[in-house]
């Protein structure tokens, strides 16, 4: 059933804006919840003596997430941080990806032939848009995190951040190094997203072909 608003001029842009808002919220909530639970589990596990080696990632995260620490109280702080940070990242990824993919909408939605009042559909991914979204978020994240270390004056002690130069040549814990690293990370994430979208679309199409031929 199409709402009257959608049939009027201006209804479609309204529908697009509402869809963007709704799905940004949903994707942000999902990613926020998953990140929060992951940080909670890691924090609780790191607080148990037999799992002490798990303290290292918790302590590294705590540089950026104040209050996050091994043990239940610290893990709960991590859960809250995870919900907020994961939610913001998820929302931003969906928003950038969906806005960039709008021009290719007819290729991204495969409407399924079905009786009923509502058009059911399978979602395809648009590799370049996904790459732009995740690449940009990753690059901004690396740039921000590096310069946070520079601003708080601990750049010289950041041995773990420096290790990134092994996979991102030219990266340093400095303003200039963070720019080089951000560009390289963007390109790497973009390439992985292209491959991911291509693989997902191919697998989903193969499954649909298989299910329609077996009917």
């Amino acid at each position, binding site marked *: 059933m199409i709402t009257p608003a959608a049939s009027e001029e201006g*209804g479609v842009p309204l529908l697009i804006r509402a869809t963007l808002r709704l799905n940004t919220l949903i994707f942000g909530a999902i990613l926020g919840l998953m990140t929060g639970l992951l940080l909670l589990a890691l924090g609780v596990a790191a607080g148990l003596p037999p799992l002490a080696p798990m303290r290292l990632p918790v302590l590294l995260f705590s540089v950026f997430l104040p209050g996050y620490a091994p043990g239940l109280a610290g893990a709960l702080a991590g859960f809250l941080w995870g919900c907020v940070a994961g939610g913001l990242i998820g929302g931003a990824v969906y928003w950038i990806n969906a806005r960039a993919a709008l021009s290719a909408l007819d290729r991204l939605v495969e409407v399924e032939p079905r009786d009923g009042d509502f058009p059911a559909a399978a979602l395809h991914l648009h590799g370049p848009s996904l790459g732009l979204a995740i690449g940009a978020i990753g690059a901004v994240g690396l740039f921000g995190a590096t310069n946070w270390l520079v601003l708080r004056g601990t750049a010289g002690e950041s041995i773990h951040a420096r290790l990134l130069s092994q996979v991102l040549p030219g990266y340093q814990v400095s303003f200039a190094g963070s720019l080089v690293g951000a560009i390289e990370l963007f390109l790497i994430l973009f390439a992985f997203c292209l491959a991911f979208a291509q693989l997902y679309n191919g697998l989903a199409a193969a499954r649909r072909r298989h299910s329609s031929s077996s009917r």
Partner: protein
Amino acid sequence: MSLDDRGRLVLAWAFARLDRPAFALASAATFAAVIFVLTVTIVLKGAPPGVAVGPNLAHLAFYFPGYTVTFGGAFVGATYAGAAGAAWGFVLATLWNLAHALLLAVIRVRAQLSFYSID
């Protein structure tokens, strides 16, 4: 494309489902590739004689038993990362589909209720 067709397309896009097995498999392959490429890159870069290769990356062995920063370890790490990626992708796609199914159900119930409304 007419305005109505475009509206239907946008509505379909708003509630479109992710193919869960395909999303899980694609996530598995991507996670596995990341760990594989990362390990092989560190192994190829090597280390001076007497110094361990990738001592920090080797900490992954705590989460992935049997993992080492070697060519063989890259396959072990890729297998574990693939399993983690598959779980992550499956959960994400399931939650996405579930959220949209619930929302659609709520919209349908509200539409039914408003049909019976007396005001």
